[in-house]
């Protein structure tokens, strides 16, 4: 008679890392649908700041959903790229959330959102040079030592560049990963948006990154505008279906990385759950093409 090995007894919700499957951003309007239908989704991701509240429905539903699914905790307010020190209270709140929900992954952005006492509620760009590099590395070190776990850092979508920058974004990110041991959350939509905005080749950008460090991929839709020259200006608004160009880039990324946990992000004009689930299934198809 075969005895199950300990590994096969671990449910995905209790497994140590994110599964190599597709996940969805968990939206409050889908809480009850998820609990009632238990959809076949690899994992859910939530914005950490939304759950920094004392009690109520958010914790009620997240607790029930977390018991059944792996979880990725994604921060949007830590301001890792900020000139000032990290907010200790905010870090303490993150540590409490991680203790409570034991997420498989924690990630944040290469961006800043606070200056002094003011929180600007956007992911803002930073100049890339030796001094900002050492500052970001110090912040990542501080996060990882406070949270007692490695974090994933997400590449940004940007609309402007700084004259002060002396390093390419990809070299800057590569050096942070080398110095701090953090992983990379590769947002393929951000790569596409930034590369169109800054006239770079998206695939060359991808190839300049340390792809071995990729622990998660984000896919999302963008909005389209034009700048003063009438050139395409793409805006990362998480409010549209994933663009074909981003799907193609995703396929090229997977050919290089092999299967990676992949999240479909939609934060604005959130459609019915089934629409997001269809995008997750599409991503799952790409993943299955590279699975061994």
């Amino acid at each position: 008679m075969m005895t199950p090995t300990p590994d096969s007894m671990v449910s995905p919700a209790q497994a140590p890392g994110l599964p190599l499957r597709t996940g969805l951003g968990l939206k409050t309007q889908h809480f009850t649908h998820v609990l009632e239908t238990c959809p076949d989704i690899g994992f859910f991701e939530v914005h950490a700041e939304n759950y920094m509240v004392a009690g109520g429905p958010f914790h009620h539903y997240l607790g029930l959903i977390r018991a059944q699914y792996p979880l990725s905790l994604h921060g949007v307010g830590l301001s890792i790229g900020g000139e000032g020190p990290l907010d200790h209270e905010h870090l303490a709140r993150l540590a409490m959330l991680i203790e409570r929900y034991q997420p498989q992954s924690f990630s944040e952005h290469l961006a800043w959102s606070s200056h002094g006492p003011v929180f600007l509620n956007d992911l803002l760009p930073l100049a890339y040079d030796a001094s900002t590099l050492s500052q970001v590395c110090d912040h990542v070190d501080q996060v990882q030592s406070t949270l007692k776990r490695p974090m994933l850092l997400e590449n940004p979508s940007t609309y402007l560049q700084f004259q002060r920058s002396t390093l390419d974004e990809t070299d800057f990110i590569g050096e942070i990963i080398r110095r701090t041991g953090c992983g990379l959350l590769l947002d393929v939509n951000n790569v596409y948006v930034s590369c169109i905005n800054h006239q770079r080749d998206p695939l060359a950008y991808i190839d300049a990154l340390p792809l071995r460090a990729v622990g998660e991929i984000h896919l999302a839709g963008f909005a389209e505008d034009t700048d003063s020259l009438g050139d395409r200006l793409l805006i990362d608004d998480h409010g549209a279906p994933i663009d074909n160009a981003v799907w193609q880039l995703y396929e090229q990324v997977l050919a290089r990385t092999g299967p990676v946990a992949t999240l479909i992000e939609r934060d604005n004009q959130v459609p019915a759950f089934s629409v997001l689930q269809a995008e997750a299934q599409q991503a799952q198809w790409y993943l299955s093409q590279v699975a061994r």
Partner: protein
Amino acid sequence: MSIQQAFAQALLTPAAACPEGVFSSNGADPASRFAVYRNNVHSSLINGLATAYPVVGDEFFRAMAGLYVQAYPPATPLISEYGNSLADFIQGFEPASSVPYLADIARLERLRVRAYHAADRQVLDQPGVLQQLQGAEQLGHLRVQLHPSLATLNSPYAIVAVWAAHQAEDAIDTFNPRHAQGALVLRQGVAVKVFAIDSGSVTFINSLKHGAGLEVAVANALENSDEFDLHQCLTLLISHDAITHLHLEQKVSP
């Protein structure tokens, strides 16, 4: 001034020029791209306020909220707490004075958001509360602890009626908003509820929240309004699972 300080200042000031030291790789005017960041900051904060204040969240509100965002940008990454001072801002905002109840509606909506996110606490079941009340020998000295989500508001306007009319999309000109009304906000399970209560009940509930025993709380309520109905008010609290604990006042030892 540092790059980020200049960036932050220019983001919050709509008329300000694009900060120095930035460029577009295609040679486009950087201001046309900086505008994306400025728009993200303002529209995301205004949208956040409009979500938290749905009754007042129309076009007029968005224009007013834009001025509020410039004057009082968030001081915390916790956006659910942003806008705590909005009601006071509305109160002092001259163009809003033609809708005098707007500030109190905003106060009511803030209480709803707070109730939604308030701490969880085990509540006493309804038979248990009734049993303890009926069996209590010193009923007047009983202290009633209320759920953390529970809050009240007194207004010179019919705030609950106005708020409820908006929920049902009724025209509010079917009633007179200029009569005083109190509001009780609480969370029962995962649902936030709003009730119209009289000013005596507001005083009664606030007295309990400040730790008064039943006898003192009733006296305070009657002093405020001789129409206060204890039975009705307790029934409202018990039937909506608002009571978390009942115990006798501790005698102060000498």
